[in-house]
């Protein structure tokens, strides 16, 4: 059991972080904390991807000293996916934060339940 845990430590941590981020995004009522939760969730996936993409003892696939043997290098695709994922989550966070600014200016609170209540009182 312990050896399984030690062998897959990164993956376990990643799953734990994903769960923390997911529940924060779903259940926390504060919008800013929701955004933080979203970022934790995405970071967990990046950790997961990088940890399986990295093989101990190998290096990034850049030719140095003329070594062309593939077993010397790691697969660059997981790292590429992480980079793409980071770009996506940065833009999503920016949009969420700007929405939050809008909402705060209008309702002067960050609690989504209060905001919904205030909104319903607005026009009914």
């Amino acid at each position, binding site marked *: 059991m312990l050896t399984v845990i030690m062998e897959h430590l990164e993956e376990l941590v990643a799953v734990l972080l994903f769960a923390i981020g997911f529940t924060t995004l779903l259940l926390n009522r504060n*919008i800013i904390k929701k955004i933080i939760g979203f970022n934790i969730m995405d970071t967990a996936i990046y950790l997961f991807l990088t940890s399986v993409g990295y093989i101990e003892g190998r290096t990034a696939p850049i030719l140095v000293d003329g070594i062309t043997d593939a077993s010397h290098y790691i697969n660059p695709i997981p790292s590429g996916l992480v980079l793409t994922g980071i770009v996506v989550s940065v833009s999503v966070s920016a949009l969420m934060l700007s929405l939050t600014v809008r909402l705060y200016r209008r309702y002067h609170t960050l609690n989504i339940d209060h905001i919904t209540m205030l909104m319903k009182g607005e*026009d009914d």
Partner: protein
Amino acid sequence: MHMQFVQNVPFFSIMLCMICGIVSAMLPSRVAKWVTVALGGIVAALNLWLTFFLAGYGQSYVYLMGHFPAPWGNEIRAGILESVLAVCFSVILMLSMLGGMSKFEEQVHHGKQNLVCVMLDLVLAAMMAMLYTNDLFTGYVFIEIMTLAACALIMSRQNGRTLVSAIRYMIMSLLGSGLTLLGITMTYNVTGHLLMENIQETFAKLHATGQYQLPITVIVGLFFVGLGIKSALYPFHTWLPDAYGYSTPTASAVLSSIISKAYIFLLIKIFYRVIGIQIVMENQVLTLAFAFGIVGMMMGSIDAIFSHDLRRMVAFSSVAQIGYIYAGLGLGVHVGYAAAIFHMVMHAFAKSALFMSASALADASGNSKRFSDLRGAGFRHPAAGVCFTIASMSLVGVPVLGGFVAKMYLSDAAITAGGARMWIMLAALAVSTLLNVLYLMKTVVTLYRPAREGFSAPAVKRSWRTEIALWGFVAANVLVGLLADPLMQAIRSGLVMFD
């Protein structure tokens, strides 16, 4: 076979949408609006050309993006199902933009109209990319592009309701994207590939040897729940009524007809092309899809009956229709998938027509959303009245129209599936049709009753663009019914090409 020029159409469609989006950001809004309308028309025409080519060609083809062949490069793949859907969705975008243009000018902040056009162009770009891509991660990137564009579209008309529903949409959507991304990551870990064919091959091998059974189930579940949340499947639809009910008519039509359908199509594509439909059909996750779908069919209609506002009613009816589609997928038979895709096309045309005509009818009744003020609106705005009636009749399932054919194929699929699912599906279809009649036909009758006493109808500003679009929607809805056979044929052969 030698590459023909027409085979460039998928790539051109995606690039054209992107370029129009970039250019529209700098154009004055009166030009940008027409660029979007023209874009819808051009993409539809291009894809129609491709459809005729593929009908003759008889199989799908792969188009290399860049110079690296599989398993390294990125690919586009086109079959007849994708091209037919591309035609349908770009026509809907064109008509929605044209029909909603006068309201758009009224409701969207003046300096930002061209930016909303950028979002519409991006929605079409993402739609085309999701239809045609052969790479799982490219699919994910365009899921996110579509989510961001959808969020901006919800907010295109700024009021409290749309702001709050935009943030609720984003929260729900991000949960869905997170799960989908995890699904993609796990798929990559298990198979080591991102191109759909390579993944499917590996999954088939693993399935044959019985390895990785649990991870594969988890992957199917992640894709289903992730994309189900994003397409507003029943318990995840809370953001939907406000978003559809209070934004501009163009945004509501595009959100309900194009954006939610894109995720469903991607899910079907993942089931067929990534995981392999045989593995999916043996999986218990489909039972979940079936259950959610059936509950959605009922609850959406019940919510629609109790809503006091025309556009919210139409929005809740979307929840019910999405339920039909998922129930069709959950039947676990090939005909169920074909029926679900047909239902998706039918609903896309009917729902955009309903949103467009509902907004025109509300206008002709002094912008009141109360049902009693809508009495006689069908006479005050004839085009909108006809459009609403035809689309409602289609959704209810009056013969000849698309909805009837869709329900027939769904019942046929239910009978093919047999067992308990058959009885549940048939009963649910019967009950939900009755519920549909209750709220949709009641509204149609209201539209043609004499106006309430003491109600003075406001002068209607007729816009020729809206009139054209409304008649266009009428024609499209009738055509879906009349052309049901060739359409179903294309869907069936498209699904065969998927394997």
